[in-house]
């Protein structure tokens, strides 16, 4: 195994290992050590890929053309975050509860880091999906850990979004398999073929993108992927979690909002979509419009609110809006994307860095302190429709699951029990048995007559 390969494995692997508290304890300055492999990789690596056919459904990570750019973004983003974390850890007041909170914080920090680096290096759909799931849930932990109700609410809304997004992306990945493998939709099936096909399925991004160009499912795939990542990135109009999290997050996490969930979602779009090869004018148009609307909205928003705290949200909406427009253009005019598509990576990098910078500045302007929780006093926030909807869904399901069926069953059971327990039955059984005993000889005769009748009349 070459140095590059081992570094490739270590880059997401080391943070993952260090996430275990007892391992972390023996490593000094773990928050920097965890980033170290990424730095080394950036310095030493040549272009290579590691295929891990035994991993999951056969995954691979690699160091390709755009990786250095993305890795440097990662370093620029995470080094300050790590610094912020170490400040936070040093300022710990030594009480048990803050120690626990900090320990957790470090764990989630490292898990998020691992997921983040993994998504950058992932070379296939499943790997990307896996790491982004890891990143999503651990970022949730990072967001709400030790926080107040405001922050928890923000975390909850964020969670709704990533759950929904993961569901959509899962379906998209399935479609990708169908597209690459020519899994026949219930045509004449060759079972062995499809079994082997599923095993040897290759979901590397190039393969998927190439396969989708000609696949008949590309529209479904496209909409699933775009909506899925739009949820994750907080595109307008699906941005509800953004302002809440920006308002609620504490510094290390706050630094990462723009760079981690949003940027990775954009990266996902670029990686997953066969941009530049596929021509879908109508879809492109719709997407362009929604991007333009997002830009408009964010500008209006900025004009009306004029509040420092909403600035990151507005900026995020603006940049993602711009990105969406570019995406739409790419879909309707693939040649344009082919020409300028590589700029998308730069765009992502600059966006995430700019957002991080902005957040840092704002946090600094606010209280000159990178590691307090003070500014996050619970404030009354208007309850958003998304929360209403989800609450309503939950209530409906409760009514359905909790009441209807069990009640129906309970009532029918009760009726049945009533019938069973009615004394009439008991009495009937009792009496019948008594009658049998009292009239025993009469019954004997009756049976005798019956038998004789059957034998003599029917047989004889």
């Amino acid at each position: 195994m070459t140095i590059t390969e081992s570094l490739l494995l270590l880059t997401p692997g080391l943070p993952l290992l260090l996430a275990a508290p007892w391992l972390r304890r023996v490593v000094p300055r773990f928050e920097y050590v965890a980033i170290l492999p990424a730095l080394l990789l950036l310095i030493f690596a040549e272009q290579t890929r590691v295929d891990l056919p035994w991993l999951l459904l056969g995954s691979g990570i690699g160091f390709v053309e755009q990786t250095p750019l993305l890795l440097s973004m990662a370093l620029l983003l995470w080094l300050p975050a790590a610094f912020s974390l170490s400040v936070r850890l040093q300022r710990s007041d030594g009480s048990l509860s803050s120690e626990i909170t900090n320990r957790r914080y470090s764990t989630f920090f490292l898990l998020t880091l691992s997921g983040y680096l993994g998504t950058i290096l992932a070379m296939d759909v499943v790997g990307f999906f896996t790491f982004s799931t890891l990143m999503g849930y651990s970022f949730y932990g990072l967001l709400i850990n030790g926080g107040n109700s405001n922050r928890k609410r923000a975390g909850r809304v964020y969670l709704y979004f990533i759950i929904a997004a993961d569901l959509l992306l899962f379906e998209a990945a399935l479609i990708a398999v169908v597209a690459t493998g020519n899994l026949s939709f219930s045509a004449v099936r060759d079972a062995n073929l499809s079994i082997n096909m599923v095993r040897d399925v290759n979901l590397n991004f190039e393969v998927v993108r190439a396969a989708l160009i000609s696949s008949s499912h590309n529209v479904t795939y496209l909409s699933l992927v775009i909506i899925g990542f739009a949820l994750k990135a907080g595109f307008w109009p699906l941005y509800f979690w953004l302002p809440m999290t920006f308002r609620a997050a504490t510094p290390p996490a706050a630094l990462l909002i723009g760079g981690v969930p949003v940027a990775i979602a954009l990266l996902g779009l670029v990686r997953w979509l066969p941009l530049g090869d596929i021509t879908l004018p109508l879809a492109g148009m719709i997407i362009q419009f929604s991007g333009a609307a997002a830009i408009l909205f964010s500008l209006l928003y900025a004009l009306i609110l004029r509040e420092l705290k909403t600035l990151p949200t507005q900026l995020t909406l603006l940049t993602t809006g711009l990105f969406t427009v570019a995406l739409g253009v790419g879909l309707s005019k693939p040649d344009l994307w082919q020409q300028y598509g590589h700029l998308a990576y730069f765009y992502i990098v600059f966006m995430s860095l700019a957002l991080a910078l902005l957040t840092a500045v704002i946090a600094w302007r606010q209280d000159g302190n990178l590691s307090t929780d003070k500014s996050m006093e619970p404030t009354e926030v208007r309850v958003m429709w998304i929360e209403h909807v989800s609450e309503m869904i939950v209530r409906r399901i409760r009514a359905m699951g909790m009441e209807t069926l069990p009640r129906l069953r309970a009532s029918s059971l009760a009726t049945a029990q009533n019938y069973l327990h009615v004394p009439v039955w008991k009495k009937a059984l009792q009496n019948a048995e008594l009658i049998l005993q009292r009239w025993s000889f009469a019954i004997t005769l009756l049976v005798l007559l019956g038998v004789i009748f059957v034998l003599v009349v029917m047989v004889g």
Partner: protein
Amino acid sequence: MSEYFELPLLILASSMIPGLIIFMLPEEAVRTRIALNMSGALIKVMLVGFVIWGVSNGQQYETRLPFLPGLDLVLKADALSILFITLSTVLWLVTTVYAIGYLENSPHRSRFFGFFSLCVTATVGIALAGNLITFVLFYELLTLTTYPLIVHRGTEEARQAGRTYLIHTMFGGALLLLGTVWLYSLTGTLEFTQRGFVSGLLPDHDNSLIIIFVLLIAGLGVKAALVPLHSWLPRAMVAPAPVSALLHAVAVVKAGAFGIVRVIYDVYGIEVASTLGVTLPLAIVAAITVIYGSVRALFQDDLKRRLAFSTISQVSYITLGIAVAGPIATIGGLVHLVHQGMMKITLFFCAGNLAETLGIHKVSEMDGVGRRMPLTMAAFTLGAFGMMGAPPLAGFVSKWYLGLGALDAGQDWVIFILAGSSLLNAMYFLPILHRAWFREPMHEWPATHYLWRRETAWALLLPPLFTAFLSLLLGLLASLPYSPLEWARFITSLQYAL
């Protein structure tokens, strides 16, 4: 016919004999009992390992004992039984360790461990059964041996639960028996055959075959907790935690699901079943079960009850995968047999730890419990994410194959069922995790009294960690040879071989 005539018998005996001896031990003979249990479990693991090695090298293991004229008791280790037998053997070992820790100093341990071993014997028998009559035999034996385990606590509630369990399973057993007899009177054989043995009856006896199918599936569905027949399962959670764990992960529920697999594949054969048009209704019933179980789980405050409803939902994945009747979905269903077992047993172990160490039985009491028992809750977290189908855990692999299989078989609606179920899973597991990790504890937890500030006894802590780790590995290393996924693939390719 085969070189290793005795081996399947030995596998049975390795749990049956300790069980029988344990019955005779006095209550105080703790060490002897532990030694017996553990040695039985270890021997079984070794034997099964040997069988796996043999079967993958084309060896045949078959025991045939005369039972009735024209019908033998057949124990046979084929690929499908290996899958189930390995699961039950490994989990038996783990659960035995756990049970020893869990039941320390509680009364009636001889009785408990005796029936516990017999229960595993029955499960293994079900796995090894080479014809329907042998299957029925061990199936009923399983009913009998689990009953004492369910009522073990001896409370009025336990007795009621046992009653519900018996009413359901006896009824199911009767249906199964009726179906079996009927089938026998039609075919004159009950031998499990690759791709089924009823195809000869096809044109003339369509209706009979459909009715028999319904009888068999209804009989098995009781144990597999298919929806109208499921209500015994949530009640049976009054049993001690190791029992619930085993019940939900391996023994009873899985026996039902495994039986459904057998009926569809080795009795009817997938082609005949499809021709008869019975698979789609079954898939629909399974789908309803998947959703219904999750919906009910959503609002259970009792942790074990919530897990029980979750089992109802998850086990039907297996049935669903089989009933979708495509090769890939089949792989998904089969592999879920193992994966669900691994994940669910983790969850139940953890629930048992909470109950035993801190006296927590309800979700609403779990606030901040992650601080007091971080390892247990970490295992729980892995299990829960696995249930939701988050990559790279075992549940993801199953869901992946189920989804692909549904697409492959042209049954796209299954995708929505899967998505809905994942969503519901997230809805009832994530709040638990949120409470455990991020809420402030309501009161101080009792301090630990174990060495090195461990959160609970070794015997209680190691099993869930082990199974959680396994369920991670099952997902991560799914593509390695001998992994359950590869094995399921192998079975499926046999079934669909051209």
